[in-house]
């Protein structure tokens, strides 16, 4: 198994594991916001604004995972390959 294959497998695992948490968190956020909107329809504007901002905040965890897997695929894997070839 080459280092590049390892990098690809780890990149897939990063996305798979790293998207579980944000998915659960976003689901809870959306459910809570809907409940709040059903209780107080007058405040739906404020709730929607806060919902979008907090969803973006939660989503950034998954985005960091995406970034790490990108780095693994396109930067770290070839870099390791080069280092192994040089040594």
């Amino acid at each position, binding site marked *: 198994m080459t280092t590049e294959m390892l990098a690809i497998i780890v990149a897939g695992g990063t996305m798979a594991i790293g998207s579980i948490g944000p998915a659960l968190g976003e689901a809870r956020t959306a459910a809570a916001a809907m409940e709040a909107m059903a209780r107080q329809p007058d405040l739906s504007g404020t709730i929607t604004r806060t919902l979008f901002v907090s969803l973006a905040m939660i989503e950034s965890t998954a*985005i960091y995972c995406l970034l790490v897997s990108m780095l693994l695929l396109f930067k770290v894997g070839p870099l390791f390959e080069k280092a192994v070839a040089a040594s």
Partner: protein
Amino acid sequence: MANSGGMTSPVEDVIVFQVGPIPVTRVTVVTWGVMAALILFAVFIRWKLRKKTPGSAQQVIEGMLSWLGDEIRGIIGREPGPFIPLVASLFIFILASNFVAFISSFFEVLKPPTADIKTTAALATVVFLSVPFYGIAMTGALNYLKTYVRPIWIMLPFNIISDLSRTLALAVRLFGNILSGEILFGVILSLVPFFLPLPLMFLALITGTIQAYIFAILTIVYIGGAVKVVEKHETEEKAK
């Protein structure tokens, strides 16, 4: 390139031409194209500006600006006049850049500027610098520096770290969202070229709009953090 499927690295970019020692990449060209289109649109709007009988384009722009003004009034609690130029420019530029992704799906030559980490990092740096600018301009340097020790002085390092990390998060969020849309679209297009990419394009439209909205709202929230808290403190002192 050491990857399969003919996909190039999303972090690097194609060099279009070279001006002396400076390579001009595709993203730079597209960014200048977006800027030129927006400036032309602004000049057109200015030329068509009527006080008594506003055209449809003028009504759209006026509606958007008054909506942004209401958002600013709701979050910061001040008149939106000084903040509108920065926030509206960021919003319109990011919105236009994200919609380039929609066009690029047809031509495969354009890359949205916001799918490049350098563009989003530059935009986040603008926000990072505008926070002390507005803080010092509206409340004075001493009051702005006091926001760093706001609850108690122990919070000073955390406040500084929060300032830096939220800038990073702002850049990476926009970059990651637009780039993931592009990658998803590319993968689906290589698997099923007919009909199936269409819903993904609608999704890219929604994501682009929401990300532009979130960038603008977070800019308002960060500036509001430097401007609003001090004012509340002042009114408390006046009440005493």
